[in-house]
């Protein structure tokens, strides 16, 4: 079966700068895939190449088995781009109707408006929309051709927590309908909420790939720090997943994927804990770690 998207050994150079170095990437019909990576990792470049908005310096790019610029391939795709706009002088429904005319089998305008939650803004000028409303309009434009695959490039950047969650609900609605989704994000939480496969990229390379849960386990460690009057014996945490345990001047620090188990063990032992702190090892940190692992693998065992 032809994959929806296929990149083979794709490299992209901007002048001297290497944005992608030999990416292999494949999305099958019905999959929801997240490209996860820090800013500047090459996610947006990768999406632009899949959509034919940028040309690969080398390697092969296929969209439904065709060149991504092919109108037949494009007619089966919906996109939400990070950096793009629509004319401010048009009203919401007018833009939707305009975009509907680009596709062979558009959804009815009313259905698009309802799905995107734009019922109250149908007659507003695009120029007067708030950030969240604008984002919903972009979503409406992405689905108006009844696409088989949705590309979402950093779809919730700049949205508040509530708007982000309601957007995820919308996308999940699409996923239920069995469509393919390719999204980029630098929020692990977003990848986890939406995707069944996560591809971690950084510096233009694929560093890790797997289910959201697997990636999360790998990068989702929390840093636990607390102060005790007496030295904590490492044996206290026997059987628990603990890394980097260190105690200095009564302050204990450790990394764990399940901090609640650590706390339970401490309380059960009646340890007198003060200044307790549980911090998510943030994504940047996690990426640094995966990146380091990636480099180690490349360079081989030392």
């Amino acid at each position, binding site marked *: 079966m032809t994959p929806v998207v296929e990149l083979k050994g794709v490299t992209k150079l901007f002048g001297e700068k290497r944005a992608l170095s030999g990416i292999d990437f494949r999305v099958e019909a019905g999959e929801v895939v997240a490209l996860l990576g820090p800013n500047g990792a090459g996610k947006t470049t990768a999406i632009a190449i899949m959509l034919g908005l940028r040309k690969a310096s080398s390697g092969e790019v296929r969209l439904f088995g065709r060149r991504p610029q092919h109108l037949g391939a494009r007619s089966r795709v919906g*996109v939400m781009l990070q950096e793009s706009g629509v*004319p401010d002088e048009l009203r919401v429904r007018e833009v939707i109707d305009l975009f509907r005319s680009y596709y062979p089998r558009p959804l009815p305008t009313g259905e698009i408006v309802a799905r995107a939650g734009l019922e109250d803004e149908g007659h507003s000028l695009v120029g007067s929309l708030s950030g969240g409303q604008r984002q919903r309009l972009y979503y409406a434009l992405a689905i108006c051709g009844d696409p088989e695959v949705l590309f979402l490039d950093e779809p919730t950047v700049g949205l508040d927590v509530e708007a982000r969650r309601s957007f995820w609900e919308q996308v999940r609605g699409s996923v239920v309908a069995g469509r393919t989704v390719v999204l980029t994000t630098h929020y692990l939480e977003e990848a986890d909420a939406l995707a069944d496969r996560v591809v971690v990229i950084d510096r233009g390379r694929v560093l890790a790939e797997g289910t959201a849960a697997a990636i999360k386990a790998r990068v989702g460690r929390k840093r636990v720090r607390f102060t005790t009057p007496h030295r904590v014996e490492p044996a206290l945490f026997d059987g628990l997943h603990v890394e980097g345990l260190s105690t200095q001047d009564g302050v204990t620090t450790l990394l764990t994927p399940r901090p609640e188990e650590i706390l339970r063990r401490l309380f059960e032992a009646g340890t007198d804990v003060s200044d307790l702190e549980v911090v998510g090892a943030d994504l940047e940190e996690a990426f640094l770690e995966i990146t380091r692992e990636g480099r180690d693998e490349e360079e081989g065992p030392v």
Partner: protein
Amino acid sequence: MRPSAQTPQGREGEREVAPVLPMLIAQTKGELLQLVRDPAFIISSVALPTIFFAFFGLPVVDERTAGTGAGDYLLASFGAYGVISVMLFSFGAGVAAERGRKTDVLMRATPLRPAVLFCAKTLSALLFAFATLVVLFFFGRVAGGVEPGMAAWSTLTYRLLLGSTPFIFLGFAVGYLTRPTSAAPVIQLIYLPIAFASGLFVPLGGLPEIVQEIAPYLPTYHYAELAWSAVGANTKPLLASALWLAGYGVAFLAAAIWAYRREDIRRFG
């Protein structure tokens, strides 16, 4: 996204791409709405020629110039001025604004055909140019009693609309080479002196000799010649002006293609 419609290999036996004509109609409507709702465009392109005619033309409607009525002559001049304005601003400032807002990025990701977009822009610009001429002719007739006759009006209209092609290309070139905020000032800066030097505001006979010598090398001058001859003014042979315009058309087209390619490599390469 109706689940029933999906098969992994696409929907066989159905239309693969959208039909062109409805797309063209929708796009033209979109372009027209954008222009109608842009006050800067309406004032500088549609209203200004009539306002200029009121200032420069009305006081002299009963005089004669270049072998014809001064009212008729200036009606042709400002008609030419107006149509070029529409072309330069709708294409130049329009394209620059699209680049600035990155509307073009999103459109490129859709199956919109570039040729449809170009035709829609041309159609809507022609409609606006036509409206500009109608407003001007109506004002000239009502306020100044300028009435060259139906034949002259229609000759003037079709010559001005057809002859405006080089300025569409020039507009595109400017639109790709300027920033959204600088497009309109750049156009004014280029266009106003050239229009003046071509005798569009004041008939050439009333301008300094040096300007009279430069004028026959300007595209706007030859474009205006098409208009002046339509209202019975003494002009050089029409074919000569048509050839000059065609030459400029080729040059501006080359500039537009060069500017487009430069943009294409920078932002979409």
